[in-house]
């Protein structure tokens, strides 16, 4: 019936008109979108594995309608190397403190617009979180989660442990010790044991730390990259130097596991959520950072992954058991003696050479 209502020649012109309108519409929509239309509803997140809540991404999608593409990396070096050659399209990244410091120095991250992140006021006002040395005023990223690197051990085999002397000054646990395969952490611990700062740039101090490690080498079973907790759980070692979150996870499977921040002071790490330069969807990224710092979302995240949150408002909603757990929230006096790994600039060569000497000894 339509065919007879519209005469053939005008049908052709109608189709032509529709075609022109369609082409114009497409052309308008692919014009640069600033001011014309919002960013497309997509977000590319690059994060550590098992480092997000069960519902974080779903609630984000419900609130904003933005689709999330979620990729994983296993180390700060991998993150840095991937972005060094040019941002392949990530909007949100989660570098650890010293990596963020390096990225700021080479303009790999962009400054945040705090007006788009109202939940920033929920961050703990302690200067460690709200005004860190490497990121003053939280200009380039917000703290995401924090924790410590300490000693996980099996009390039934080793007895109580509270000091680095167990791994650096004794042969009681010979052959049952695993250390992290990370030069800054292990040499840093040796420096702290000798009473120096974690981020020493003094060649003599680093040499003494190296010699201590070489002396202890025969008691160390292996250097574990990220599976120290698995070795502890399997009974291959009785003491391991590991991140607190990894030890807390195996504590669920085996009650005979304990974690301690040594009395000489441990290593504190703070992961930060940031936006790399060249991100295709910076507005969506800001919205995500804001979403993650919403007290309820943050509490759900923390309760799932069981790391410590720097979000003071969320802490009220965190599991009471987690708040009391010294493996997650270490006591204040140990925290005050702990330090964060900071970039040491050219002095990194000292650590490289000390580490190579230790490994080759």
């Amino acid at each position, binding site marked *: 019936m339509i065919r007879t209502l519209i005469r053939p020649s005008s049908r052709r012109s109608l189709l032509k008109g529709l075609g022109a309108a369609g082409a114009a519409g497409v052309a308008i929509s692919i014009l640069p979108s600033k001011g014309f239309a919002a960013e497309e509803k997509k977000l590319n997140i690059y994060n550590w594995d098992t480092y997000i809540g069960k519902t974080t991404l779903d609630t984000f999608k419900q609130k904003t309608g933005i689709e999330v593409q979620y990729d994983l990396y296993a*180390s700060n*070096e991998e993150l*840095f*190397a991937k972005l*060094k050659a040019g941002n392949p399209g990530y909007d949100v990244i989660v570098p650890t403190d010293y990596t963020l410091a*390096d990225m700021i*120095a*080479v303009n790999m991250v962009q400054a945040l617009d705090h007006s788009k992140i109202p939940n920033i006021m929920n961050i703990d006002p302690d200067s460690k979180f709200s005004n860190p040395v490497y990121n003053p005023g939280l200009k380039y990223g917000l703290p995401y989660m924090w924790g410590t690197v300490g000693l996980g051990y099996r009390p039934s085999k080793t007895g109580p442990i509270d000091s680095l002397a167990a791994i650096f000054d004794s042969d009681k646990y010979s*052959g049952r010790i695993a250390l992290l395969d*990370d*030069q*800054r952490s292990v040499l840093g611990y040796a420096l702290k044991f000798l009473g120096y700062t974690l981020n020493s740039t003094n060649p003599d101090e680093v040499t003494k730390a190296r010699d201590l490690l070489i002396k202890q*080498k025969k008691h*160390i*079973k*292996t*250097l574990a*990259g990220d599976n120290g907790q698995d070795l502890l759980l*399997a*009974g*291959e070692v009785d003491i391991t130097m590991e991140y607190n979150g990894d030890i807390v996870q195996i504590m669920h499977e085996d009650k005979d596991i304990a974690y301690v921040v040594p009395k000489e002071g441990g290593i504190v790490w703070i992961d930060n959520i940031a936006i790399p330069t060249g991100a295709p969807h910076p507005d969506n990224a800001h919205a995500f950072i804001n979403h993650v710092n919403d007290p309820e979302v943050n509490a759900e995240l923390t309760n799932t992954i069981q790391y410590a949150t720097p979000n003071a408002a969320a802490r009220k909603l965190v599991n009471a058991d987690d708040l009391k757990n010294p493996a997650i929230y270490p006591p204040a006096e140990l925290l005050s003696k702990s330090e964060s790994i900071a*970039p040491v*600039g*050219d002095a*990194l*060569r000292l650590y*490289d*050479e000390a*580490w*190579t*000497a230790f*490994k*080759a000894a």
Partner: protein
Amino acid sequence: MQDWRKNKLAFAILMAPASFWLILFFTIPLAIVWVYSFGGRGPEGQTLIQFSFDNYRRSLEWIHLGIIWKSIVIATITTAACLVLGFPLALAIAFAPSRLKNVLLLLVILPFWTNLLIRTYSWIAVLREKGFLNFGLEWLWNETDWVLTLLGMPDVLGDFQPLRLLYNLPAVVIALIHVQLPFMVLPLYATLEKLDKSFLEASLDLGASQWRTLLSVTVPLAMPGIASGVLLTFILSLGSFLAPDLLGGTEGLMIGNLIAHQFGPSRDWAFGSALSFLIMYTTFIVLWVRSAIASRSEGGVGI
């Protein structure tokens, strides 16, 4: 086959894709790494393009030469063991009845189809203190203890102490032999297969024993295959970093690990490039030695 000079255009067209691939994905990246090896390192780990021999000088320091030497020793042990294990295996396959040949070859190639990481990881499951080997030994120990108790000697064997087979150099060598064996067997098999069996028959007819034939006739004729297999295995073992990293514990530092460390935590790509090229030069020298051996051996079947 035509002589390529007769139809240069066809030759060029056929060569083009392979040459293009080689240049784009091999020569150019290698050239970039070569340029890096003369470069420097900025304070945040950036690679600076400059010209200095610092990196090479540093890679020739005693400690790094020690690591290179250790890697060469490990690679040599691995290659020797692969040769001793692989030659009889290749011989057996080459002289097997033809219906069995394919099956046997498949058995040698099959591990290739499993990811290298999984193959190396599986050694952890076998060698660790609560691994299969120690479980087996513990079972044997307990059974022997039970038998001895029955025979009236209850406390002869004490508690079972698991063997420390992992996180040391022997574990690395074992895993490397396991991984590299196919690389030794296949070139050897290829040579032995093409061997003119009449030479062996003649030797036996002339009164030589089997053993004598093997040493005086088969091995010299198979020398090009042996050279290829040894070369391949040696170079691959020298550059390995997975096995020493996973299985070596604190003793596992080979040159591959050192180079990987430079491109990772140390962020000193220039030094890593210099070390890589040092290995490259070593490889070129070994290749040159190989071609010298190959050109010397007349009558042998080349690969």
